[in-house]
């Protein structure tokens, strides 16, 4: 499958493609026809309010959840059509930074970073040791090599998770809420790391976040996910214009603007208040 990408003359064909993706939990459609393209080398930020399906979308892109309808393509191949072996090959070509870092708590930071190298390459342990030190240096964590995950801070865990994600020199990096729960300085450091990896190594990045400062800092393009659909996908400049624009131009624009500005008044809050509130209080219209 690697040939598919390498032989492709059009460098601009997307490395990640989400096509009409639908995912239901019970009867509730968390993703309701999502389309998304991520081009090689760019940083795509997917944002949206809590519970809009951002993390679910990310989990579909890494093949840990399967769609009810639609499909996800990585490197031009449908994830759903890949067998286990091919999926594993694809997984070696991307890395993920989980929200909590998801370090293996029974191993030291160094062993965490070394694990993908030990399991997927035939490098000898001296070489692996050197690579681990390089990766940790890249995220500024060389001194934490022999520490256990429980002994380091949340920000350090994320950086260690990032070092592990880039251990196999992936072509795509997925980030799940990279700055959630971090102080502003650490958060900015993580953003800087994301940009460095993208610019220096040419890695394609897909970032899921609801931290707007961070989103505008790192994004080349952005997509706004709302109630299981992509409300808008466009360049960072387009989103900046919507943010700074006047209200009332379009309903979708108003939703995006409220979100980008982080205002308490607007269509998102109005929607929340008007949906079933009276029925709930009065106890009508909801019986079985």
């Amino acid at each position: 499958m690697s040939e598919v990408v390498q032989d492709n003359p059009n460098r601009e064909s997307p490395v990640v493609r989400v096509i009409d993706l639908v995912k239901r939990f019970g009867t509730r459609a968390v993703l309701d026809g999502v389309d998304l393209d991520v081009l090689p080398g760019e940083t795509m930020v997917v944002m949206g309010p809590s519970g809009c399906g951002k993390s679910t979308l990310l989990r579909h892109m890494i093949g840990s959840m399967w769609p009810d309808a639609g499909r996800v393509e990585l490197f031009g191949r449908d994830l759903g059509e890949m067998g286990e072996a091919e999926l594993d090959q694809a997984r070696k070509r991307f890395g993920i930074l989980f929200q909590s870092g998801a370090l293996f708590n029974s191993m030291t930071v160094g062993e965490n970073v070394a694990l993908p190298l030990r399991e997927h390459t035939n490098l000898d342990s001296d070489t692996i040791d050197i690579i681990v030190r390089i990766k940790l240096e890249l995220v500024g964590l060389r001194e934490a090599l022999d520490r256990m995950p429980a002994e380091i801070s949340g920000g350090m865990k994320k950086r260690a998770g990032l070092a592990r994600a880039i251990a196999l020199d992936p072509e795509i990096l997925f980030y799940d809420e990279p700055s959630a729960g971090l102080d502003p300085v650490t958060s900015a450091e993580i953003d800087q790391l994301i940009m460095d990896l993208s610019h220096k190594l040419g890695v394609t990045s897909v970032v899921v976040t609801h931290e707007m400062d961070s989103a505008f800092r790192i994004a080349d393009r952005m997509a706004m996910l709302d109630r299981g659909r992509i409300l808008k996908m466009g360049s960072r400049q387009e989103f900046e214009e919507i943010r700074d624009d006047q209200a009332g131009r379009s309903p979708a624009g108003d939703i995006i603007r409220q979100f980008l500005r982080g205002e308490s008044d607007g269509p998102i809050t109005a929607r929340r208040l008007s949906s079933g509130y009276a029925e709930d209080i009065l106890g009508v219209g909801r019986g079985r």
Partner: protein
Amino acid sequence: MSREPIQPNMVERLGALALACVRYCGGMALLLGRASRLAFRGLFVPGVRFGRDALAAQIIRIGMRSLGIVVLVQVFIGVILALQMTPPLAPWGQEDKIANIIGVAGFRMLGPIITAIVMCGFAGASIAAELGTMVVSEEIEALEATALNPIRFLVVPRILATLVVTVLLSVVADVMIALGGYLAGLTLGPEVHVGYWQRMREQLEYRDFFTGLFQAGVFGLLIGLIACYEGLKVKGGAEGVGRATTMTVVYSIVAIIVAACLFTVVFYIYKV
């Protein structure tokens, strides 16, 4: 809500219970199938990575932790057996048969089954808690995303380790029950302890020993399987981990006793 929720009737409840049972057993069977395939490939297909280090680490971890308790418990079981058999046997002058009975009961069943029950607590609960915590902290997902199969990487070494450790500890347990009986015999009188080992050796056949070990292997497999299954299907944070730990111990003990009963019936019918 405006109306009372409809209560499921008896038939619906029974149906739901039956479905849940089938689903649970089906899930475990799938896990066992995948784990066996991966274990088989890892052990016998050259070039496929297996993780001997992980297996050794698990065996040492589980085994060392359980060894002391198994020794302690089994000696006491031997003492209890000897003391309780004396009153009914003494009027007939048959106290010397205590050695024979302890031999058969210990080697065939009590050694393996009590070892397995100790293992439920030590190995089962800790495996379920460990895997459950890994699910909650996204570690399992991280493994999958690193193209490492959690079943190969976590489940296979744990199931194999509980299996091997239960069998090995059962051998220790057999000896300890016999020793417990002998120690009790020392206080009960010469009828019991003089010639104790001799009589036990005469009574015991190889099949008493090996059927016991076979059962120990099955018990170990059940514990490892239930613990891994419960651990991997944890949902909902720390509470879920606690629940998985409890259910592992409960289900493992039930499974062990049901299996023991089935084996005893089969061995009895076929005179094994």
